[in-house]
């Protein structure tokens, strides 16, 4: 009889699940989904060795395991810490984590140019999402921000180092997808930069994937730059017979025109299958592709604006985190104000409400 695999029981934010040994805390939390999954800027499931650098996925381990229930003294990077049987992890239920994550977001943003209005990544940028969800509204940084010159790394890729958050994903991608990596990190500390030393062009068949793995707008597709905003585009899944890759892509349409081709991404923003440069940069006609249908887009994403098909409702985990209780309103405005006319149930009014509805209701009451 085949030996049954022992599963590890892990509790994250009061939700217990069973995962296989060797799973990281981050991946266990992603299995639960929703708000319980810590954000990750540098970790990338497909890239071996990635993670641990950005520190946004820090979590508190309140109990190490059943065998050794001591808490871990420091917050740990959930992407690089494996679960143990009986581990208790606090993510959004830990004030320490929220505070540390707040700090990390602030650190990531102090030297970021915040040029979202002119950045091609806007709308699908992990840093935008991160700062929206975990950051503060204002910065305390009052100094000149670090800037770099823009570089063209070959005909397809432009490097805008000023926006880079040094997640090292593109370095790992080039290491693992190509036979010879030609770019890397030069210098150190806050002046370190992604570069090719002497401006070389990157021209490996799969190098285009570094655009997809970049969480910010530091590496952009030169064939798409400034052509369109992503939220005006309609993503469609498509495939073709490609001798180099498996040809499964997402086409980004506006009207009948294909503006760009990217790899398909999962709900965590990670590429499902790497695609080759030919599929990505050279096949921009509908005739090149077999269309499968609209891509599923999270309802939270700005890309879902104006699209009514293929929207995914995000998972709601908060009631589970709170042990079945619903989040409580901090203050019920009706108890202190009559402005909203609590006596009138808007849902019972037929059609759109008009001011007259309120007048009548007032008179009637």
């Amino acid at each position, binding site marked *: 009889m085949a030996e049954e695999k022992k599963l590890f029981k892990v509790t994250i934010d009061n939700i217990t699940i069973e995962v296989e040994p060797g799973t990281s805390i981050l991946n266990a939390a992603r299995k639960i989904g929703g708000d319980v999954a810590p954000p990750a800027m540098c970790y990338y499931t497909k890239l071996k060795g990635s993670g641990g650098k950005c*520190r946004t996925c820090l979590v508190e381990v309140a109990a190490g395991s059943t065998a050794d229930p001591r808490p871990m003294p420091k917050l740990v990077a959930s992407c690089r810490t494996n679960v143990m049987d009986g581990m208790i992890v606090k993510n959004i239920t830990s004030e320490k984590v929220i505070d540390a994550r707040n700090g*990390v977001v602030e650190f990531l943003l102090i030297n970021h140019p915040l040029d979202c209005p002119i950045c091609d990544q806007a709308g699908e940028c992990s840093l935008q999402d991160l700062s929206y969800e975990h950051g503060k509204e204002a910065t305390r940084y009052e100094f000149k921000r670090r800037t770099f010159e823009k570089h063209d790394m070959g005909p397809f890729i432009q490097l805008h180092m000023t926006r880079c958050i040094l997640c090292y994903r593109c370095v790992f991608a080039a290491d693992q997808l190509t036979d010879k990596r030609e770019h890397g990190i030069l210098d150190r500390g806050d002046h370190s930069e992604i570069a090719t030393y002497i401006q070389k062009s990157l021209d490996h068949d799969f190098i285009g994937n570094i655009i997809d793995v970049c969480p910010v707008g530091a590496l952009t597709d030169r064939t798409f730059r400034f052509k369109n905003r992503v939220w005006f585009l309609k993503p469609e899944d498509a495939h073709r017979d490609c001798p180099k890759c498996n040809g499964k892509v997402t086409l980004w349409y506006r009207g009948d025109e294909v503006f760009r081709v990217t790899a398909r991404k999962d709900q965590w923003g990670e590429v499902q299958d790497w695609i080759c440069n030919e599929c990505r940069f050279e096949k921009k006609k509908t005739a090149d592709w077999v269309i499968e249908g609209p891509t599923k887009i999270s309802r939270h994403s700005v890309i879902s604006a104006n699209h009514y098909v293929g929207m995914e409702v995000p998972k709601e985990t908060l009631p589970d985190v709170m042990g079945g209780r619903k989040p409580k309103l901090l203050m019920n405005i009706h108890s202190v104000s009559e402005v909203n006319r609590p006596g009138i149930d808007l849902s019972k009014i037929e059609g759109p409400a008009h001011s007259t509805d309120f007048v009548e209701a007032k008179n009637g009451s």
Partner: protein
Amino acid sequence: MGRKLLLEKAHVEGIRTYEVYRREGGYRSVEKALKTMTPDQITDEVKKSGLRGRGGAGFPTGMKWSFIAKPEGVPRHLVCNADESEPGTFKDRYLMEFLPHLLIEGLIVSSFALGSNVTYIYIRGEYAWIVDILEQAIAEAKQNGWLGNNILGTGFNCEIYVHRGAGAYICGEETALLESLEGKRGNPRIKPPFPAVKGAWDRPTVVNNVETLAAVVPIINIGAEEYAKIGIGKSTGTKLISACGNINKPGVYEIDMTISVEDFIYSDEYCGGIPNGKKLKACIPGGSSVPILPANLLLKTVKGETRIMNYESLSDGGFAKGSMMGSGGFIVLDEDQCVVRNTLTLARFYRHESCGQCSPCREGTGWMEKILKNIEYGKGKSSDIDLLWDIQRKIEGNTICPLGDAAAWPVAAAIRHFRDEFEWHVANPLESQKRNFGLAHYADPLESVTA
């Protein structure tokens, strides 16, 4: 005068050469260890001696050795960390420069204990001339049969190679050192796995400081029990202290960890007091990363006991009221020194040396430096002090390696103990450019704490 174990022979004429070193009793420990002891016995001996890592963290060395994984057929390595780059620390330089054979001797014994046939000395790039000294010593040791194949007919083979760093403080962190040794960019690794399991080239590796490995020699020579008798409590043996700053006799001193901090600064045998009759204002007792202490907290602990130069006493009171032994870089500041200026200098150093791998350290160190620069040059705001505190708090403990902590602690301690000096800088922007805050109340006796 305390007993000397390491620097006893440092002033013998020609001790740098093999002949003189051997004549003075050198390499006895290798004979004793290889011929009469097993590797496990040596590890036990080091454990019993209570020797703690001299590189800064003070982790028990014997314990570290016993953690090394011993999988079949996988070579193990010993790496000597000679990347001494902490501002204020220069004890290893002295040791390697004057007693290179002592280090080589310690390395051979330790390599035997750990089963390392290829041992590396990773030396700071700026110590270019010491590389020549060490290589000379290695060649001499090899000529005389202390290195190479079948040492002393025991069947144990060992080679020592010197590897030069390229001038990065971060490569003193053990996993960054291993990355650099492997020829990669010196970024610290994420732990676990620890080097004892997966170190250099994924092989089990022990990384020890120069002084730690040199201290193995007297432990083997005089025996662990004799060694453990020196010192107090868990601070056994002797420690090298590199004293610098405003003192009459800067230099490297070997202490037996029973001397009080006050005696160390003022006695003629050691630092010889502060020049020009100035008063003591503050001191960083263990290299630039450890918290700075004002004079009153330095000489006496918060309980009113005399502070002794050892691991426990210096850290008495925790980070709020104490400091750390660290790597033994003893920096003394007299009443003319400005703590804001000093903190800025340290912040600039850590900004420059951060590897840039993880965000809090990469961005936070630069931010702290900029704010401190403003305060120092009379452009600070009072909110800046709280902001600095908040930044250091968000760096500390949230980074991959201890450099983040090392950058945060000096700033935290300076604000904790010298907040009025920072506030004075902010409140008197013009005056602060012309004169120093001075001694103020930092040497006043502490109010006795009623239990």
